[in-house]
């Protein structure tokens, strides 16, 4: 069971909002890059987010670049999972590859600051603040398998190959 606070974002949060190109020189200095996570969407986010919190977004979260640094710094600051109505393809795969859960659900009724409880195994989100329960869609089998191993690198280290 994961428990934390919701940080609410709108639609079309791009990888440029999360880790802008102007900070490309920090990509080999991840702790420094993480201090700027989501800076262009909410400059106060990095200083307010706590380990265990959730990013809650609208449609098409993570569109744009293939830079894996975007989910990487989100994970580094301790975000438990990303909840969104939809997620762009490359970002989705990158997050799962890093062991960061991405949950597709209708986030309309979750507000900024709500206390959430997520049960990954049962596929439910409990919005404690609003006494509201949601369910999220199941991941495709292969992604679930990768996520359960903690990401793609541990998965390949364990199996030596794709085991579909």
């Amino acid at each position, binding site marked *: 069971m994961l428990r934390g606070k919701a940080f609410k974002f709108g639609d079309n949060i791009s990888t440029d909002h999360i880790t*802008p190109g102007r900070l490309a020189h920090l990509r080999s200095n991840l702790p420094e890059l993480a201090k700027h996570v989501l800076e262009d969407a909410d400059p106060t986010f990095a200083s307010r987010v706590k380990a265990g919190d959730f990013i809650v977004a609208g449609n*098409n979260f993570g569109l744009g670049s293939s830079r894996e640094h975007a989910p990487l710094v989100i994970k580094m600051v301790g975000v438990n999972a990303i909840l969104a109505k939809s997620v762009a393809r490359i970002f989705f795969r990158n997050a799962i590859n890093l062991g960061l859960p991405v949950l597709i659900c209708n986030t309309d009724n979750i507000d900024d600051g709500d206390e959430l409880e997520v049960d990954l195994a049962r596929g439910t989100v409990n919005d404690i603040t609003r006494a509201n329960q949601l369910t999220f869609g199941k991941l495709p089998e*292969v992604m679930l398998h990768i996520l359960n191993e903690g990401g793609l690198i541990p998965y390949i280290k364990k199996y030596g190959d794709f085991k579909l």
Partner: protein
Amino acid sequence: MGKTLAEKILSQKSGSDARSGDIVIAQVDLVFAQDTTGPLTIRQFQACGFERLANPEKTILFLDHAAPSPNRGMSNDHILLHQFAQQTGCLIYDVGEGICHQIVAESLAKPGDVIVGADSHTVTAGALAAFATGMGSSDVAIAFGLGKTWFRVPESIKIMVSGKFPHGVEAKDFVLHLIGTIGADGATYKALEFGGDGMDNMSMSERFTIANMAVEAGAKVGLFPADRITEGYLSSQGRGDHYQPMFADRDASYEKTINFDLAALEPTVAKPHNVDNVALARELKGTKIQQVFIGTCTNGRLEDIAIVADTLKGKRRHPETRLIVAPASPQVLLTAIRAGYIHTLVEAGAIILPPGCGACLGLHQGVLGDGEFCLSTANRNFKGRMGNPEAFIYLGSPATAAATALTGEITDPREVM
């Protein structure tokens, strides 16, 4: 039942009967990373315990995003990439040797290939009927090490085009119109497959522009058939032997088909801060522009620079509008020099950047000031994209960019042609 192009290529490369929705493991014909995603790719490759590349001759590093490097951090990343190339024997294209997608198009991709790159615009090679898609560093690191990757075979959306571009209208206007129509997530997880008789009139350069922006609609790949135009292009690049015809089967099944009449299009512009936020260029008349940027993997080819040079010949840019031009590759630059285009552009007041991504992603060479407006021929106008979240980016065709550089405000190119 017949197969889409996506199903055909993934069937061949996975040795299975691949149908949309299936999960397959496919051999990759080409795998690459660039200087902003390559260092993490190398670290993931090493974290996985790999010591050797599956196919060094099919593995490539490109130093194109910071070319040449503007700071110490990027310079040190470049050193890391060079060291990795030395150790593993992979190919490396150094600073100044061009944008990854342009080099893949000119020299490497061929019909029927599976290509994965740690860069979202890897989709550009879909114009050559290659199943080419962007992935993150972990996936690409595994493809470096194993020479293969997994795919969910995408459903395909058929984009049928008819007619010809009217005077002053270009491939860029079409693809912006297309994204405006289906939305920035209109093709998420899907393949876009282009067809129709309008394609017979479309050059490879135009097809690259369109395939390049498939990802801006969320698509996994934007595929064109390999036809006589593809063959002509590969021959002109000295790669005629790389050609094989590739078409979807007539009875392939598509999620849906959308029709477009090229003749009905007008110069189109995407407004800040999303690519699907489109309007007609003429509707934006009066919008003052401080910087015009022409280049990138979308529109930095010879044909693009030729249009700009034609429009600017004997004229001068607006005094309050910077004009920055970045050819996509040395081949483009050299040909543009020989054709006199560069001479024309410099006389018109342009700044010529070395082949590379230039100002596109806000690393250097054209970072916008607070409150400034830019008209760019790139593929993205997200907030902060060109180095400053307080700036505003409009996307348009090379013709619209040239017309805008002349007048200092967003201008329908038909007004100055």
